[in-house]
């Protein structure tokens, strides 16, 4: 009986089922390929053409766009400027989200009444659009309405007041803090999931051995949460090196003041989709910028896979 059943199954598997596989896969592969994979490859292809206007590539120019981007004024200056701004932006956001996110998650994960409410509140800003958050904080920080400055005065910290978004030294860090504020909930969420995954017994044993809260963080939480630090950081990396909305909302597409907040995202938009008077460089140059952004994200992800994932896989194989 069992043998018959197996034979029957294998004959069904061989004949009928195969026919449906391409059918089930087709819609997904077609849409994903045509509207995501091909456009990204197409952008790389286009970076070797002039492509001045909206129309199809005009003339093959080899690496000329890249050479201009790396060596000529004003391309090089804008490009290098956006690169370093982006690195700074990424480092500030990574530092704030990992440090604050980690400690908030450690606090929230303690057993006490109401800890779930804190988790829910922390995640609320993540659901808002980056654009709305950017506009909202511009209004709060601007000197006309100036609610932030008024709060500082109320706290007797009035001496700290400065033109937050108007000065080249403060604008970029302030915008980085705003983005960190918005996405903190996500970091906390990931850290809490990581803490939930730690074996209760290990924590109990540490307590019995007399480990204080700091030792617990240093020797148990921190090492077991390293992969989470990796996930949070790579998500910030991908998000920040393509970030556009927050710059648009808080510093316009020019990265005001005087390009001090210009990131790759705003540079890409401005040079590709705006007219020459407003900073446009044509599609070919824009495609070169997009390709470099792709390479940066790609290298970042490979680096992350190498450090965090490969190690994880090896551990799994060993076990």
């Amino acid at each position, binding site marked *: 009986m069992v043998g018959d*059943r197996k034979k029957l*199954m294998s004959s069904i598997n061989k004949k009928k*089922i195969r026919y*449906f*596989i391409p059918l*089930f*896969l087709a*819609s*997904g*592969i077609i*849409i994903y390929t045509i*509207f*995501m*994979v*091909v*456009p*990204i*490859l*197409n*952008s790389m292809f286009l970076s070797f053409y002039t492509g001045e206007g*909206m129309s*199809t590539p005009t003339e093959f120019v080899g690496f000329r766009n890249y050479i201009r981007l790396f060596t000529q004024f004003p391309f090089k200056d804008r490009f290098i400027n956006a690169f370093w701004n982006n690195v700074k932006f990424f480092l500030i956001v990574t530092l704030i989200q990992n440090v604050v996110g980690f400690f908030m998650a450690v*606090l*929230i994960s*303690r057993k*006490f009444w109401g800890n779930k409410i*804190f988790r829910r*509140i*922390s995640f*609320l*800003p*993540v*659901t*808002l659009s*980056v*654009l*709305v958050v950017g*506009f*909202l904080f511009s*209004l*709060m920080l601007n000197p006309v*309405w100036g609610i932030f400055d008024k*709060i500082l005065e109320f706290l007797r910290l009035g001496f700290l007041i400065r033109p937050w978004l108007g000065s080249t030294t403060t604008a970029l860090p302030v915008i980085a803090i705003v983005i960190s*504020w918005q996405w903190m909930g996500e970091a906390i*969420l990931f850290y809490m999931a990581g803490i939930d995954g730690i074996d209760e017994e290990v924590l109990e044993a540490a307590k019995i051995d007399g480990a204080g*809260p700091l030792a617990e963080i240093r020797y148990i939480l921190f090492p077991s949460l390293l992969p989470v630090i990796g996930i949070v950081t790579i*998500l910030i990396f*991908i998000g920040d090196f*393509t970030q556009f*909305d927050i710059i*648009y*909302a808080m510093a316009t597409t020019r990265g005001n003041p005087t390009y001090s907040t210009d990131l790759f*995202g705003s540079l890409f*938009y401005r040079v590709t*989709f705006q007219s020459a008077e407003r900073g446009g460089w044509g599609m070919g140059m824009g*495609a070169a910028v*997009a*390709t470099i952004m792709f390479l940066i*994200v790609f290298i970042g992800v490979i680096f992350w896979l190498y450090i965090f994932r490969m190690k*994880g896989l090896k551990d799994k194989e060993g076990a």
Partner: protein
Amino acid sequence: MARTKKPLLTKSLIYIILSIYAVTIFYPIFLMLITSLKENKEIFTNPYGLPHVFTLDGYIKLLKISNYGIYFRNSIIVTVTSIFFILVISSLASFAIAKYRFFGKRFIYFYFIAGLIVPIKLGTIGILQTMIKLHLFDNITSLIIIYIAMGIPFGVFILTDFIRLIPEELSNSARIDGCSEPRIFYKIIVPLLQPALAAVAIVNFIPIWNDFWFPLILIRSDSMKTVPLATALLYGQYETNFGLIFAVLSMASLPVIIFYLILSRQFIKGLTAGAFKGE
């Protein structure tokens, strides 16, 4: 004595730190919502607290000067349609990948998953050209198609793992009863898949509803605008009219805030699942 005191102290310290944190998170959003209900004068004379006089003037003006109903309708059409197709398309593909053996299966799986780490934004030039060729420039259909393509990698990622966990015996006994493969998918897999489908839908909802980049590139006519694009343009146009601007920002946020308050548990579950799959 010292033993009973210490936990109490740390506990109150935790409460204090978390309360300060909760206020910094909550207050700006609260401020946005209450300011939208204040009269223009009061926004400056009484900036922090609840309004003395509640008014809907900002919202009424917003509905008068713009076609907000249309932007809202467009955003709903785009979000609902693209999420629906993401669910259908990625569950079909995941079913094939999870339940059948065929040549190139691993490759196809990783081909889809690769989309998780490459931002679709970097293909914008190619997308723009394709949409112009297909005569879909300045049409919300283009947005729907892009969001479907954007959502497939995450959908396949979550659903493939989930379908793998469904015991093969269920499908096999149906096969013996003469059930066809599409029927197995529809009658057996889909009903069991519902929690995972909900997670995929919820996780896609936020970036699709809030997307500003693609409407900015692809939409020109007023009748095709979505809420985020309209928000940006209205903000630029009425920057000095605070009552109106706060109504604009609140209108863009209220749907997601309400949605989140109702479904916060599912939101948190879905996002956590996304980050920790394949660990």
